[in-house]
Structures are given as C-alpha cells and as structure tokens.
C-alpha cells in the first residue's frame, strides 16, 4: 500500500454489455511519481483513464484521485488535475485566447501567465482556430491547458499519438523538466515505450483488461533479461530447460533464452543444473519486455 496515493484503483472492473474491458484492476500511484500504464490497443487503457478521471462509472470497484472518489467527486478533483486526452478534445472552432477566457472562469487555480508562456515557448498561435493548428501545436496547447493550473496530478492518455519522433522526444523532455520542478504526479498511457522509459517510475501492463505487471520500472527491467550461452555436448537440452525454470523462462532457443525472474540466486541454480558457458546477460528494453508480455508467442521458442 502506498502512503498518500494520488491515484488509487481498487478492484476496478469495466464492462460494455457482455464484453469485459477491464477486470479487477487494482493499482496505486505514489505522490510525485510517473506511472505508465501500458497495453496493446483495446487492452482497456482508455477505459481505465476515463474511470480515473470520473468520466465513466466503473461496473465494479472504485477509483480515487487526490483523495476524491473519481465519479462522485470529479468536479472537486478536477480543480487540481490536468488532462491531455488521447484525441484532442478542445472545441475545434475556438482559439487559444478564447479558451483561456473560459478556463480562467472555471478553473480556480488557473494561471494565465503559465498558459501563455507555454504557448509562446512552443510558438502556438493564439488567434488561430484549434482545428487549423498542426498536430504538434494541438498537443502543446492541450498540454498548456493541462499544466496552467499547476495540477497535482497530470493524466496523459497517449499524449504522443500522431507526433513525429522529434516532437515526441521534445514533449517528454519538456514534461520531465516541468514535472521535476513541480513535483506533479503523472498517470499516463502510451504506446511510445522508448519515450517513457527514461521518465516512468512505475509501470503497469494491461493485457485484455488484466493487469499483468505493476511494479517500478527498474525492478521490472532487472527481472527481465536475455541469456546467451555456448552449449557443450555433455549438457543435454533437458538439463538446460530444467535450469532455466529457476529464472522463469519466457522464451528459449538453442543458445539463448529470455527470462522474467532473473536473480543471482536463480542464476546460480541454473548454472548448477546446466553448466553451460554463459557468454552474455543482456537487459531488455521496456519495448522488448512489453513484447514479451503482450506478444502472441509467449512461452514459445525463439
């Protein structure tokens, strides 16, 4: 249990008729942390985000943000929550200036200077209709809206969708800078695994609505690695397979294997069982881990 959890999901279940989008999801996001919820398309990420933001009522379970029930206390909670949605939902006919007038009337902690400063920094035109802005500018405007009120929680639903590699990188770099200064908690979903690898503290992976992984990124990355060895003739394949069981083998080939429970103790047991000559132990990138977790061939041979 996380003390001062900014986001807390408890047994969250979301169903659409007979289809279960999210099943018994429980997780907590610590204050000041960056939580990345990952998953393939249709895994239930956006439904989860909608429940977290109080835009959708879960079928079962609870969602709390900033101490408020997401559904019942949405209005209060949103005073200190910034949101960047998956698809920009700023009214297309409006301009940055006009939207500022609206936001300043409904958001108690709104800081116009923050907003305009950010627009200026990223050269987002203030008099142009939102629909005529480039995708990058739309994202920056959405982010400016989300950050102008100095939120305690920032929710980003796939914020880099549609952005090119440079824009993605800039967005994350900029975000890290902002958040480091403010100590804002971030809850995000993304398909840009490389981009968030440097900023996420904690990672959750959803597969078909079920949370497969929920742990600090460093721990996750330490668990997953690829072993490469040189086999000798007197070590049978059966012994190698038996030895790999101590490391939680995910995939294995003739001279390599991906394991998900790597530890010193487990490695010693593997070596005792299968005295092969291990030439390399490679750590996996988040993307590779994600593919291992969510790919179709889990448990197969490489």
């Amino acid at each position: 249990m996380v003390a001062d959890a900014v986001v807390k999901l408890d047994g969250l279940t979301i169903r659409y008729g007979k289809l279960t989008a999210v099943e018994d999801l429980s997780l907590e996001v610590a204050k000041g942390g960056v939580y990345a919820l990952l998953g393939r398309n249709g895994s239930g990420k956006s439904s989860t985000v909608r429940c977290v933001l109080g835009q959708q009522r879960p079928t079962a379970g609870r969602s709390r943000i900033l101490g408020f029930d997401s559904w019942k206390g949405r209005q209060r909670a949103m005073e200190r929550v910034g949101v960047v949605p998956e698809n920009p939902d700023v009214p297309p006919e409006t301009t940055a200036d006009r939207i500022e007038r609206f936001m300043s009337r409904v958001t108690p902690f709104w800081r116009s200077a923050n907003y305009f400063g950010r627009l200026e920094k990223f050269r987002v035109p203030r008099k142009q209709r939102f629909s005529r802005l480039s995708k990058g500018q739309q994202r920056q405007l959405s982010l400016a809206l989300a950050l102008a009120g100095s939120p305690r929680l920032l929710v980003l639903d796939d914020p880099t969708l549609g952005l090119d590699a440079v824009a993605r990188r800039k967005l994350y770099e900029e975000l890290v800078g902002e958040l480091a200064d403010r100590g804002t908690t971030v809850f995000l979903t993304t398909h840009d695994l490389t981009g968030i690898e440097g900023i996420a503290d904690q990672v959750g992976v959803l597969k078909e609505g079920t949370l497969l992984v929920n742990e600090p990124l460093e721990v996750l990355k330490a668990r997953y690695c690829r072993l490469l060895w040189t086999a000798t003739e007197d070590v049978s394949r059966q012994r190698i397979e038996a030895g790999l069981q101590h490391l939680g083998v995910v995939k294995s080939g003739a001279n390599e294997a991906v394991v998900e429970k790597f530890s010193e103790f487990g490695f010693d047991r593997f070596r005792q069982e299968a005295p092969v000559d291990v030439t390399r132990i490679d750590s996996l990138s988040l993307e590779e881990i994600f593919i291992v977790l969510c790919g179709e061939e889990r448990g197969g041979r490489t």
Partner: protein
Amino acid sequence: MNATMAVMAREFVARREVVLVAVAAVVIATAMPFMPGLGNYQPDDVRTVSSNTLAVALGWGLALLFGATVIGGDLSEGRFGFYFARPVSGLAVWWGRVLAALLLILVCETIVLLPSLLGNATVLVSSHEWVWPAVIACLVMPFLLLLLSHAISIMVRARTAWLFLDLAGFVVLVVVAWLSVRPLLMMVAEIAVYVIAGALIAALAIALSIAGWVGVAVGRVDVPRTHSALSLALWGTLAVCLAGIAFYSSWLRNFGPKDFDKVEVLTVAPDGRWVEAFGQARNRLDVRRRCLISTADNLWIPVPGPWGGYPMDVIYSVDGSTALWRGAGGSDEPRTLWWADLGRRDPSAQPTNLVVAMDALLALSAGGERLAILEDGTLSIYELEDERLLTAVRLPEGFDRVTPLFPSEETLRLFVRVGHGEGQSLLIVDVVASSGEIVPTGKIKGLGDKLLLMVDGGLQHMVVWTRSEDGLASDRNIYDANDGSFIRKLTTSGFPRFLHDGRLVIVSEDDDGGLSLVVESVEGRDRMAHSIAGASEPTLSGEAVPNGVVVARLEDPSDRSQGLRIDLLDVDSGELRNVGRHLRRAFPWAPWQYGTAGAVFWFRDQPASSRLFLDQTGALMRWNPETGGLAHVVGGAK
C-alpha cells in the same frame, strides 16, 4: 452559476455564425414587398408577415438543429471530455449549452423581426395581445423543440435497447395525454383543456430538461450510458407528471351535484322531479358536469356532455318516468342512445344497442315504453325496454322537416313542413306504431317560411305563429292539432301559452300601455283579464300548479342583479301569492330552445319547470306548492 455562464458564453461564441443566417433572412423580409406578385399588398404588411414567418421558421429550425448537435454532436465525436476534464458540473454543462442555444435563437429571431417591430412599433406599444403568442412562438416552442430534438438525437445516436422503452413511453404519453384532454374537449371545458394541455407541455419540457441534465451528468462521455440515463429520467419524470395530470384531469371532471356551486338547468321532466342540469364546482376551472338530478332526493345520473349546439339532448316521457339521451362522441360521430328508468328506486344510465346520428329526431311515448327515431327519411319505432323494432317506414319525399310526437302509445304524430317560401304548408300525419301505416290527418296551407308551432299538453290544439319575411307582420292562429282545422285567429296581443286544462293564457298589452294577464278558451270564450299594472317587465312562466301561473318581475328595474320577484297568479281569481324574492328562473322560457334544426318549432308546456329557481348564490331551489316554501336542491355558495 459562474461555470454555467462560462459554458454559455463559450457556446454562444462558438455558434455565433448563425447570426449571418438571421441577417440574410432580414434582408429577404425587407425585400419581400418588391417580389413579383406582391405588389398589390401594402409593403408594411408584406414585410411584417415575411419577417414574422421567417423569424418563427428560423427559430424553430435552429432549435431543431441545435438540439440535434449541441450535445449529441460533441458526444458522438468524442469531444465531450473537454468539459468533464474540467471542474464543471454536469448541470453547468447542460444548462450552459441549452441557454446559449436559446439565446442565439432569440438573438436571431429578434434580428429577423426587426422590420416587423419597427413597422408596428405604435401598435405593439399600445396593445399587449401579441405578447403571449410571441412568447409561445419565439421562446416556448423553440425551447421545447430544442429539448425534444436533443432527446431524439441522443436516442438515435446511441441506438441502444432503451429505444424500446422510448417507443413504449411515447405511446403511453400520447394515450395518457389524449385520455386527459379528450373528456374535457367533450365537455367543452375550454379553460380546462388549455390548462391540461399547458400542463402536458410543461411536464414534457420539465421532463426533457431533467432528462437532458441527467443524461449529461450521468452519461458524461459515454453515449449509450447517456441514452439510458436520459431515457430513465425522461420517462420516470413524465410518468410522475402524467400521473399527476391524469389525476388532476380526472378530479376536474369527476364531481357530483353535491359539489356544484353554479347550476344551470337545461331540461325538466314533465313531472318536475328530474332535471337535466349543468353544474360547475369550485376550483374546477370551467368544467361543467352534465347530469340528471332528482329534485326530490339526492339521486343523480351522469350524462355525457356538454357539447355545443344540442342543449336539449335529454328527452322525457310525458309521465316523467323515462329519460333518453345521446352518448358521448365526436361532433359528427353517430352516438349510442342511453336511457334511464327514472321511476326506479336507484335509476342508472343504461346503454342501448341503438346508434343514431346527431341530427336524428327522437320521440318518447307518453309512458316511455316506445321510442321513435327519424333518421335519413326513415322512421323506426322501438319498444325501448327490449329494443324490439315495431315498425320501420320510409317517409315520403319532402318529409325532411318533421317533428314527431306521440299522442298515444299506438300512434306517432308527425308535424311536417313541406314546400318552401310563402307556399309552405304544415302536414299532420299519424303513423300506426304496430303496422307502420301512414295516415294523413290534416294540412294547413300558406304558412310562410317562418313559423313557430306550440302544441298543448294533450296534443289537441296548437297555436301556429307565422311571420312575414321581414319579421314585422305576424299572425297567430289556433288550429286543431289532430286534423289541422282552423279554429280562430288569436287577437289578443302577446305570446300565448296553454294551461293544463287547455285554456290559453297571455300577457297582453292594453291600448293604454298597461299590462294584463288574459285567460280564454281555445274558442275565445270565457275571457278573463287580470291587471298586472305597475309590474316592471313582467314575464310569464309555466303553470306551476293547476290554474296558477308564475309571473316574474324585476326586483329593481335599475339593477338587474337584484333578480326577480316571483309570484303565483291564480288565473281564475287574479290573486297573487309571493313565491320568493331575488330569484332567477332556473329554466328560462325560450321556445326556440325546444325546436329541432330544420323541423317545426314546437313547445309542450312543462309546468313543473316553473317551480325551479336559482337564488342569488347560484343554488337550485324548488318551490313546494304544498308548503309554499322554497327547498334547496343543489349548488350555491357553501
């Protein structure tokens, strides 16, 4: 409130381009007088009509458009999360958007109405009759259409199984609305119909407003959930409102004589015991209940109605034992005949299997056993009790203005106007009930086009009053009602009435202007005159007791609200006995009320009717000849 205003301001600005449409419309309205074909009309009138029409059309059109898109559009396009990611309540989102749409509609309507407003400024300032129609057309209807369009838009966009509830709810709404309004329409309760219709519209507006808000607040960004929340709130609210309206409509209609405060007597049974009356009760708007009321006890029978134009719909047998009337229905629909055996201890309305048109002529025999129906030139005579057809005969050509009366159970007498103009004649024809044989018994020629026929209680004599085309000259002749033979010309001025014993009584003006009551036999013998000099505007009512007629005079000629002084005049002795003061006659004597359209006007004296009065509080009072006192029947201030 601040959030609502912020949403409203944002939405108003977002859709402000529609004002350009209003500007285009005002240009069209201004240019309309120059359009081909409109040169014959006053330019101001054309501009006024054009701008009014365009303003209403634009207002309603925008209401439908905004209703369909203002929330449903953003919701289905996934942009509704913008508001719900901000600290804005569902209430603020809903009302902010609705008010913005409404404000835009009003702005557009005002722009289009400018030519009309400027051209009619003086009229608009001096008269306020336009205010309510304008509010309804330019504000209420757009508001309703906006809400309705929004609800339908959400239903169509979501297309969930809740549509079945929506369809079922719509059917229930229409049925309940119709069942609540129709009886009041049938009762010609105009104000009540407006109130119930207004309540239904208000209920619809309230339910749609609540449903829209709940849909937004509960559904948030989820279209199917918005639909389910909207449908549940809409039909739930409407169910409560409709139940209330249906109950109120039922309460308005269902009251009995004991609730009456104002009473209006329509017909009186010949024996005076039963009367057909309209009653109005306190707090029931203009709903009038029509019923048969026994003046002797607390019995009453509801009778459907009223409906316009046929106030004398209940007919009685001469002995007062049977009443017959047409059932409820549309103005042109055939009606089921109902009857009541008034002689029973607990009389009740009985439907028959007989259905007649509203213009069919009906007659009951003296004892109420037989019923004659004259419809489309066919005369049918039935036994009323078992509805057995005794005879049905096709009447000869030209028998289209007929008054049927039963001189006996076995015979039906027809008084028939034939011919047109000055050459018009009155035929007297008897129809034998058992055989259907038509027996002509008399003919009176040269009566002219305007005639009034008054028959005595025994169908023995009649006074035929004919008037010239210009109505200035008139003749009153007495005939035998059996064979039409001429008896004499009535020389005494005034309108005559038959007494129970067959004599005639007339309030007549003397040569010197004085008034007297003249009594004489049909043949003109045994003439007596009793002066009623000094009486202001005396009028003669019926024969309340044998040889005693009711004379009514104004209490105060300068103040008619003081009512009438009612006296009973002994026609033999000329003695006056006071019946009561500050009264009104419950059953105004007006012969034309007893006629049937297109037929002979006729009147059979109903002496008992002259015993009924209304007091100053509107209560129906019955004069008791035995005690000489007035007894309260129904109504009046409690």
